[in-house]
């Protein structure tokens, strides 16, 4: 493929237009073509209004009481989180609402270090008596862990320092998604589903949205006191088609990312306008040709590549995994603790950056759940793995005196531990468009959207699918394909990356469902990227023997 790339580079001086396909090129729904709002417009008035409405600040004295009680019971460090976790979901099928659900839970979680061990306790009641009981229970757990560490000859928790966090942070938004009337919200999705159903041949449509609102306070025995509010939204629209004659069915999702934003984000997505395209794509998939397996080039659109970044770069660069702390569930990592700064895992020109300040990013916060203000740092620089994701009790393992600020606990009831920041692939300097990548490809498959994904516990072998698959031959899109997955070894795959889209092609996608820990907690995280070209093993997933 690299020789073909050289050919392309000599050709690229020619007018790109002459290499473009006649007429419609490739069918990306308009919702995905539009750049995700990298900088959602902040509204000071809206932020002030939700802070004023919050029930959390009034209970901060109770959280402080828990911290004091823990220190009195013998803790060397204590923090308490008050968390209101709101969820709302609207589900639509064909032409009607199927389910509308709103949930709110509020409680307090107390985390302590005592005698060198960790302890935690949480309850759905926020009052002084509960706070004191939780503190004592957490300290009892911690002391038993500390004693066990000593008896096992292991070191106590090493807690690195951090500036004392103080302040209020609201993720930028314009329209509080929980304040918009349910009828208005539901109508948007019913209309979109109806528009999908209008296309002849469509069997079913589904649509809806998931909302999460996190309103949280954090106080610690170091004097930290912060209050943060963030909203997350994930809209969706799906068309399903069935052919009894072919004995097959297919479905197509609108490629629309979940974002940290307000309801204005949903209004910006032209779901209604995208609906016919989603339906037509589903029909196209139904009648598409089965893919022929074999090694070839894959051009991955941002709507597909983000999840590959999440699984193959995001997870193996979590330091707790490399240390073996997650071995019983999520697994470990192909990277070793000593690999940072020296191990080449990707082609030159491949740069991946972690950033918990990225506007709109699902993992963006003011402070993490250790009270650390996180920033932006390199994970992979010019193909070399350089930086771990860390928390305050892990930074020392990486020889660092400061945490990267990756601590998060879901709801009041989840103990904070290391969770993934937004990790994004940086665009290439050449400024290529998706069309440039297609035109430069002799034999490949263009893949967009999120499909099935599976990767091993050390993140070597993965197999990912997608939503739409297009055959690319001699620089042209030739036909849609079905039953496609691409399989590769992580390091081989990233080393095969030989073309990256430019800044104008960069898009952000994300998930609310990054699962880790026991009991499992869900983290929300975004990944930005341009389209990029790789070498992978194409698998036909049609099955049936």
């Amino acid at each position, binding site marked *: 493929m690299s020789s073909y790339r050289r050919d392309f580079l000599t050709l690229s001086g020619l007018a790109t237009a002459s290499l473009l396909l006649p007429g419609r090129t490739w069918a990306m729904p308009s919702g995905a073509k539009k750049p995700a709002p990298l900088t959602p417009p902040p509204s000071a008035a809206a932020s002030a209004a939700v802070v004023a409405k919050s029930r959390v600040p009034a209970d901060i004295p109770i959280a402080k009481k828990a911290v004091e009680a823990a220190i009195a019971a013998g803790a060397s460090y204590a923090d308490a989180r008050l968390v209101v976790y709101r969820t709302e979901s609207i589900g639509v099928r064909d032409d009607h609402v199927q389910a509308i659900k709103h949930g709110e839970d509020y409680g307090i979680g107390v985390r302590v270090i005592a005698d060198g061990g960790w302890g*935690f306790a949480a309850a759905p009641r926020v009052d002084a008596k509960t706070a004191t009981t939780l503190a004592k229970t957490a300290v009892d757990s911690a002391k038993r862990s500390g004693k*066990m560490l000593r008896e096992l000859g292991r070191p106590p928790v090493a807690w690195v320092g951090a500036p004392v966090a103080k302040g209020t942070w609201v993720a930028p938004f314009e329209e509080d998604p929980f304040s918009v009337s349910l009828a208005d919200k539901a109508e948007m999705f019913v209309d979109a589903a109806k528009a999908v159903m209008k296309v002849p041949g469509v069997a079913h449509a589904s649509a809806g949205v998931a909302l999460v609102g996190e309103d949280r306070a954090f106080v610690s025995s170091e004097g930290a006191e912060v209050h943060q509010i963030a909203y997350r939204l994930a809209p969706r629209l799906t068309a399903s088609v069935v052919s009894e004659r072919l004995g097959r069915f297919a479905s197509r999702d609108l490629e629309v990312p979940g974002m940290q934003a307000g309801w204005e984000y949903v209004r910006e997505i032209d779901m209604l306008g995208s609906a016919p395209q989603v339906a037509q794509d589903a029909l196209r998939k139904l009648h598409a040709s089965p893919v022929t397996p074999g090694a070839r080039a894959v051009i991955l659109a941002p709507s597909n590549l983000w999840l590959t970044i999440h699984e193959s770069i995001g997870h193996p660069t979590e330091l707790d995994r490399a240390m073996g702390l997650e071995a019983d*569930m999520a697994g470990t990592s192909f990277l070793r603790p000593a690999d940072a700064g020296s191990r080449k895992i990707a082609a030159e020109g491949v740069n991946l950056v972690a950033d918990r300040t990225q506007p709109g990013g699902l993992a963006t916060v003011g402070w993490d759940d250790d009270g650390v203000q996180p920033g932006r740092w390199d994970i992979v620089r010019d193909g070399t793995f350089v930086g771990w994701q860390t928390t305050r009790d892990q930074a020392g393992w990486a020889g660092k005196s400061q945490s990267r600020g990756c601590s998060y606990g879901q709801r009041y009831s989840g103990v904070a531990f290391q969770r993934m920041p937004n990790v994004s692939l940086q665009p290439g300097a050449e400024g290529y468009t998706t069309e440039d990548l297609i035109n430069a490809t002799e034999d490949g498959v263009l893949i967009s959207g999120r499909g099935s994904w599976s990767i091993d516990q050390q993140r070597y072998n993965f197999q990912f699918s997608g939503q739409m698959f297009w055959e690319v031959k001699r620089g042209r899109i030739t036909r849609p394909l079905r039953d496609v997955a691409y399989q590769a070894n992580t390091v081989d795959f990233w080393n095969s990356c030989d073309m990256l889209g430019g800044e104008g092609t960069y898009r952000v996608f994300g998930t609310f469902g990054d699962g880790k820990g026991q009991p499992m907690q869900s983290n929300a995280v975004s990944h930005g990227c341009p389209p990029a070209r790789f070498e992978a093993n194409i698998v036909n997933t049609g*099955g049936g023997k």
Partner: protein
Amino acid sequence: MSLRQNQTKAIITQALEQASLGDVRVSVSASKGGNARWGDSMPTTSGDIERLTVSVTAVTRDGRKATAQSNDTSKSGLAKLVAQAESMAALSPVDPEIMPPRGETRYLAAKAFDRKVSTMKAATRAPIVQSAIEAGTSQGLAMSGYLAHSDRTVAAGDRAGLFGYTRSTQLRASTTARTADGTGSAKAARVGFGASTVDGDALASEAALWALRSKEPTPLDPGDYTVILAPQAVSDLLGFLVGAMSHRAAVEGRSFFSAPGGKTKIGQALFHPSITLRSDPTDAKNPAAVMTTDGDPQPMVTWIEKGVLRALRAGRFWGDQAGVPVRPSPSSLHLSGGASTDSLLDLIGKVDKGVLVSRLWYNRMLQPRTITSTGLTRDGTFWIEGGKIVRPVKNLRYNDSVVTLLSNVAEMGAPVRAGGTTDRTDVVPPMIVDGFHFDSTSDAV
């Protein structure tokens, strides 16, 4: 918090008394439990956690429906919650799939409560964790794991006379042993309602034994193989079958179980005649939930009888629409094939050439039409020859279907409770299955 029957009834009654709509449905889910984790042979986090959810579904006369949830059980909190559900319902579009309130409902009886589990705390967790770590470190292994106990209450009521209540305990533990050179790994897991479910030392010793056997694996070429699936691997694949068993999806032509003309394959011999798959929440040794959190009863069901499909899942609306019995997603699955008392080791002895699979990991659906899924072997994969474990092999990615499992079965052993990667109570045998497809190898340990 763990709630007694009269406490849940008080919450439900109080909420229903606040209702202004004729159709309001309330459910309460409460739990009190604790857990401890360990990794790299040291305790990491340990905690005690209470959770509570009150869920109110309000339905207007013209069929508008909405659900509101909170964890505030004060009188004013419940009043606010009911008012919220009712106002949300009024704002919601009409739901044509709405069903009348359930009213008085009978549930099967299952005993799944052990006071010893209900009262566990840090002091009872710590010795189990320490013995599990030391059983591995004494053999030079790196140990990680998880121990969790819970006491859970679920109750449901409505204005038409429904009141259902269950209280159950659960104790679960898992531990993974890894060799110091990082080339071997194995996991052992237990789950059950009773305090005798977990013995830290025995659990860790089992993981340690298999971890040492799995050290320094060598590659095996991908291809079609006879496999011996440990019960955990069988359970890992069965989840896809449950997902595929929607009666509605079958009628709508979106399923493996679809037959031409908007029909289903119920009554067809789809699998090997030795396969029988049932749900039995009342099983004395391995009980399961007798009701869903919405108050739907979990019935006894025979899904597959001697290879013939007998039933598919249906919710209340669809059951009514299609004229089939209501069957929620099951809380238990019992897979059996006769009276075999064979253990996993006995089955290994019966295989001339094949691959022993301990468990399957990161399993994802690929093609619902054929229920084809993908995933990887993990924590001990071995080449079997002449009825013996000959060598550990590198992990393999499979692309195959639970249909292969249920069709190409050559032998089944005695069913046992699988170690709990699902909330379902899976009681399944180890199985020998022919022609299982591995697509690629992985260096992961």
